């Protein structure tokens, strides 16, 4: 029975199998989100730092390097995720061995996340006070030291906020991948809600998705506040 037909919420829908499926969906979603975010940062953090450093106002401006990276990031960013999902599926198959399921979804997720993470990192690093960078230069610091001991350190709070945003966005993307059988909660919501009109299961999965995003936001923001030494506590 469905929510809208019966006019009430039918708990009978939630058989042990369904509950088990939802729990598995939660794990799959967390797995996709966390692994993709991590991999996204493995690529996006250095990329973002290079963008910030070689940019016009960076510590080592380089038009050629910046131009190429900026172009790549823009191109990747402008492809809608669903299209990217389909376009990279041959690559996914090559890497993972199949083009459906949560492990397969990680490939397009990382490709979509890395440039977007790079942009956030770039902007966090650009926010670092020029005066502090100059002070480090006046002490004789080389660029590597400035990156690791000044830029990343001073941008810390903003970078953590970025991670929080990335987690939320990537979780949303992972749910979108449900349309092509991407696994996780989004997959469940689409299979039950869209194809079977099973509103109870869809609503519950959506609520869980919202809760997951909220929890991540809360933890991320709390962590960034906790580690921020700029404000007097």
């Amino acid at each position, binding site marked *: 029975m469905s929510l809208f037909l019966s006019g009430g919420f039918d708990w009978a829908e939630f058989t042990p199998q369904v509950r088990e499926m939802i729990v598995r969906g939660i794990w799959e979603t967390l797995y996709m989100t966390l692994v993709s975010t991590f991999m996204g940062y493995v690529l996006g953090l250095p990329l973002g730092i290079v963008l910030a450093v070689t940019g016009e106002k960076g510590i080592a401006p380089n038009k050629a390097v910046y131009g190429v990276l900026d172009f790549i990031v823009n191109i990747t960013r402008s492809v809608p995720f669903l299209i990217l999902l389909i376009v990279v599926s041959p690559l996914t198959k090559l890497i993972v061995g199949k083009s459906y399921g949560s492990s397969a979804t990680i490939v397009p997720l990382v490709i979509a996340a890395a440039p977007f993470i790079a942009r956030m990192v770039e902007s966090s690093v650009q926010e670092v*006070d020029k005066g502090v960078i*100059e002070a*480090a230069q006046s002490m004789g*610091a080389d660029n590597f030291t400035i990156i690791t001991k000044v830029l990343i350190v001073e941008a810390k709070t903003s970078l953590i906020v970025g991670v929080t945003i990335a987690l939320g966005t990537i979780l949303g993307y992972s749910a979108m991948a449900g349309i092509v059988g991407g696994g996780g909660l989004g997959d469940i919501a689409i299979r039950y809600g869209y194809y079977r009109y099973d509103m109870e299961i869809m609503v519950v999965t959506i609520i869980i998705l919202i809760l997951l995003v909220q929890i991540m936001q809360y933890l991320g923001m709390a962590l960034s506040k906790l580690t921020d030494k700029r404000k007097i506590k």
Partner: protein
Amino acid sequence: MEPIIKIQSLTKIYNEKTNPVKALDNIDLEIQKGDIYGIIGMSGAGKSTLVRCFNLLERPTSGIVTVRGQDLQSLTPRELRRARTHISMIFQHFNLLMQKNVEENICFPLYINKVKKPEAHARCKELLEIVGLSDKAKAYPSQLSGGQRQRVAIARALATNPEILLCDEATSALDPQTTSQILDLLREINAKFGITIVIITHEMAVVREICSHVAIVDGGRIVEKGTVDEIFESPKTEEAKRFVLYRERKVTFEGGQGI
């Protein structure tokens, strides 16, 4: 005696290609070891640009910058970084690492110079004593007053035993009383360690209080330079006269604040 800082025909033009601004126009200047040299001028006169050429934070368009006998522009990047450890700088807005505590800030230049941790901590302790902040080692800059932050910046600047300390409006963000305390500290550092100090300021009172020499900068040129006594007793150029008299009046009427 060979001057510790020697500037010859220094010219700096910003945005040469697009819309050129001549910030420095054929400057010659010599600063002797142990001097406290004031550089005074109106806003936009080119004071910061000049001093930033002393450690090549700003690259001159033409001219020669010789510091401690080295022609800075002839150095490799690595040699320049080495040279900079002898030329420290403090700033109007302190420019401390806000996410690091006082001790970590002071140890930063030592880290750059690959000083071992225990040695760095010992040095940090000494420096905190010199600037009178021994109880603040673990505090973060956000927990300190402006005067205390500048003391941390001074300690950090002294960490590598520099021969020169450049101060770009180091007291402009501080109240008169704190300014006076910081100036006392600078004077003490000059006397005790023989560090040559270059002070950029808007305030004639600052020059009066601690400088041995002064150069008056106007429109990218040095219009007059000499010992503080000379310039105050008998300013030669119109600019210097106007400057000295105007500033004097300001100081008398407004209680040492300057503009």
